[in-house]
C-alpha cells in the first residue's frame, strides 16, 4: 500500500511541443492530484486542458517531463497496459456502435483477459450501479439508447475494470441542461461510493465548481493560473485572469459555498422570554435603538417578532408575528438569501444545531459577502 500522502497522479514539468509550433501546447505543468478527489481542469477553449489530460494516459506523448501514477513513473511504461489502468470517457462517449451495451462495458475486462462469468457479473453490477436494469439494457445497441443512457454506459464502461483513476473529457458536454444536472448529481453520488481519483476536463466553470474537490484554472499553454478548492478560488481569485474567468456569476456562486457561520452576524438584537414579563420586555426594547424584539422560548428558540405596540398585549404568545426566515448556521448563504426572499423579510434568524438563537443575518451582510473580493479585482483592473 502506498501511503496516503503520495498523490495518485503527479505531473512533473510536463511539456508537449508539437512539431513546427513555436510555443509548447503544454508548458512545464506540475501538479499533484490527491487520491479519491475530483480534480477539474478548466479553462477557455484551446488552453491545452484536453492535451494535458491526454498526456496523463499518454494518448499524447509528452515531449519532456514525467508522469507518476500512484508513485510509479509511468512516463515510459507500455501505454496500452497503462491505459487499461485508467478509465476514460470522452465527450462523444465513443460507445462502439457494433457492440451491445454489455460488450461495450466489457471492453477493458476482455482486454485484461477476465473469464466470462466474472465479466458478466461485473457488467450487471455496473448497470445496476448506474441505475439501468441489466436484463433490459444488456443486449441493446448504443443507437437504441437515449443520450443520458449512453452517457451512463460510458461511465460504466470506464469503471469496468475498477481503475483507480478516471479521465473524463467534458463527459456531460453534449447533453441537454436538465439531463446534465441530473447526471452530474448521479455522478457525485457514484463518486461517494467509488472514491476514484478523477481528472475532469470542462470549459464550464459552474460545472467545475459543482463537481470539483479541487479546480485547476488553466491559462494559455496550460499554465496553472490557480489550483485550489472551489471555495478558495471563489473567495480569493489569485489573479484578474481567474476573477475574469469565474465571471459575472461568481458572487452568486460563492454564496453556494460560504456558510452563514462564515459571516459576521448581528448579535445586538434584543430578546426576551416569550413566557416572561411583557412590561420588562418593553423597557428593554425602549432602552435599545431597535424597532423590534425577538421572543425566545425556554430553550432559546426564536418564536415571534414584536414591536413596542405589540408589547402592550399581555399574551405574548399571540403578540406580533411569527419569525419568517430561520436558517441554521451551517446553511449556505445562498440558502439564507433564498429564505429571506421567500419569507419576504430583510433578515434571517440564525440558529445553531439545537435550534437556539445565535444572531441575525441581514440582506446587506449577504450582499457584502457576495461582492467583497470581486470589487477589489474590478478596481485593480481599471487602468490608472
Amino acid at each position: 500500500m502506498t501511503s496516503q500522502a503520495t498523490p495518485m497522479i503527479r505531473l512533473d514539468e510536463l511539456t508537449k511541443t508539437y512539431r513546427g509550433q513555436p510555443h509548447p501546447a503544454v508548458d512545464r505543468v506540475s501538479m499533484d492530484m490527491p487520491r479519491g478527489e475530483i480534480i477539474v481542469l478548466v479553462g477557455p477553449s484551446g488552453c491545452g486542458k484536453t492535451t494535458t489530460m491526454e498526456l496523463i494516459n499518454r494518448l499524447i506523448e509528452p515531449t519532456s517531463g514525467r508522469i507518476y501514477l500512484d508513485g510509479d513513473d509511468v512516463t515510459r511504461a507500455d501505454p496500452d497496459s497503462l491505459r487499461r489502468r485508467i478509465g476514460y470517457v470522452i465527450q462523444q462517449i465513443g460507445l462502439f456502435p457494433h457492440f451491445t451495451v454489455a460488450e461495450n462495458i466489457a471492453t477493458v475486462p476482455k482486454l485484461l483477459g477476465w473469464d466470462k462469468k466474472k465479466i458478466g457479473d461485473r457488467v450487471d453490477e455496473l448497470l445496476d450501479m448506474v441505475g439501468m436494469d441489466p436484463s433490459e439494457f444488456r443486449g441493446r445497441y448504443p443507437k437504441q439508447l437515449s443520450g443520458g443512457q449512453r452517457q451512463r454506459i460510458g461511465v460504466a464502461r470506464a469503471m469496468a475494470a475498477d481503475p483507480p483513476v478516471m479521465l473524463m473529457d467534458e463527459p456531460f458536454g453534449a447533453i441537454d441542461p436538465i439531463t446534465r444536472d441530473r447526471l452530474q448529481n448521479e455522478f457525485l453520488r457514484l463518486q461517494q461510493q467509488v472514491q476514484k481519483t478523477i481528472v475532469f476536463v470542462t470549459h464550464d466553470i459552474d460545472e467545475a465548481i459543482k463537481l470539483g474537490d479541487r479546480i485547476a484554472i488553466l491559462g494559455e499553454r496550460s499554465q496553472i493560473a490557480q489550483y485550489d478548492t472551489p471555495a478558495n478560488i471563489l473567495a480569493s481569485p489569485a489573479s484578474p485572469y481567474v476573477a475574469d474567468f469565474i465571471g459575472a456569476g461568481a458572487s452568486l456562486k460563492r454564496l453556494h459555498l460560504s456558510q452563514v457561520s462564515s459571516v459576521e452576524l448581528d448579535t445586538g438584537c434584543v430578546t426576551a422570554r416569550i413566557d416572561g414579563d411583557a412590561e420588562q420586555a418593553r423597557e428593554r426594547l425602549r432602552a435599545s435603538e431597535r424597532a423590534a424584539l425577538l421572543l425566545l422560548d425556554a430553550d432559546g428558540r426564536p418564536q415571534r417578532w414584536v414591536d413596542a405596540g405589540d408589547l402592550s398585549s399581555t399574551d405574548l404568545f399571540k403578540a406580533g408575528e411569527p419569525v419568517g426566515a430561520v436558517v441554521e448556521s451551517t446553511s449556505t448563504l445562498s440558502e439564507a438569501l433564498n429564505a429571506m426572499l421567500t419569507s419576504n423579510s430583510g433578515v434571517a434568524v440564525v440558529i445553531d444545531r439545537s435550534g437556539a438563537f445565535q444572531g441575525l443575518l441581514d440582506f446587506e451582510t449577504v450582499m457584502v459577502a457576495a461582492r467583497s473580493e470581486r470589487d477589489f479585482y474590478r478596481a485593480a483592473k481599471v487602468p490608472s
Partner: protein
Amino acid sequence: MAVDVMAAPVEHSRRRVLRWLGMPLLLAVVGISLYAYVSTQELDTIERRVLNAPGLTDRVIEHLQLAGLSTLVVIAIAVPLGILATRRGARFVAPVVLILGNLGQAIPSLGLITLVVLLAGVGFKSIVFGLVAYSALPILRNTMVGLQQVDQTLVKSARGMGMSAWQTLTRVELPLAVPVILAGVRTALIINIGTATLSTFFGVQALGYVIFQGIQLDRTPVLIVGAVMASGLALLVDYLAGVVEELLTPRGL
C-alpha cells in the same frame, strides 16, 4: 443470452423477404424461358456441339473460377493495401496506390488483358492477372474510404481504453468499415464476372466462348444462350453478394 431487441417489425421483415426472393424468382423465370426456347429449336450438329448440358456446365464453372479466383486475389491484395494506406505513418503510400488502381481501371479491359497476355502468355493465370489489375480499384478505394469514415472519436476511445493499434483495427475499425468494403468487393466481383467473358479470346473457355461461337458460326440460338447465361450469372452473383453483404454487416449499425 442477450435479449433480441433488434427484432425488426413484421412489415419490415416482410419487405426484406420480398427483396430477397425477387431476384431468384426472376432468374428462375428467365432460366426456364431460355430452356423452353432452346427445346423448341431444331438444333443442327454445330449448335449441339456448343449447346449441351456438360459443355455449358463446364463454361459456367470456368467462368466462376476465373471471376472467383481473381476476386479473391484482389481482396488479398487490395484490402491490406487499403489498410496500409490509411495507417498513420504509411499514409504517403495512399496516392501511389490510388494512381496504380486508377491506371488499371482506366485502360480498356480488353486492352489490359491483351497486354498481360502479351507479357505473360496465353492461359488461365494470365487472365486472372488481368482481371486482378482491372478490378483492384473498387476494393482498394472502398477499403480506404470505409476506414477513413470510421468516427475518429471511436478510435480515440478504443486507444484510450488500452486497445493496441492492431486490436483497434480488428475490433473497431474493420468491423465498422465492413459494409463499405463489401460494397467494393461486390463491385469488383461484378466487374470480374463481366470481364471474364473476354477470356475466350485468350484460350480460356468461359461463357464468352459460347457468345463468340454464336457470332462466329452465325447461330442465333447459341448467341442468345451465351448472352442470357452471362447476364443471368452476373445478376445471380450480384444478388448473392448482396445477401452476404447484408449478413456480414455488424448489427447495431
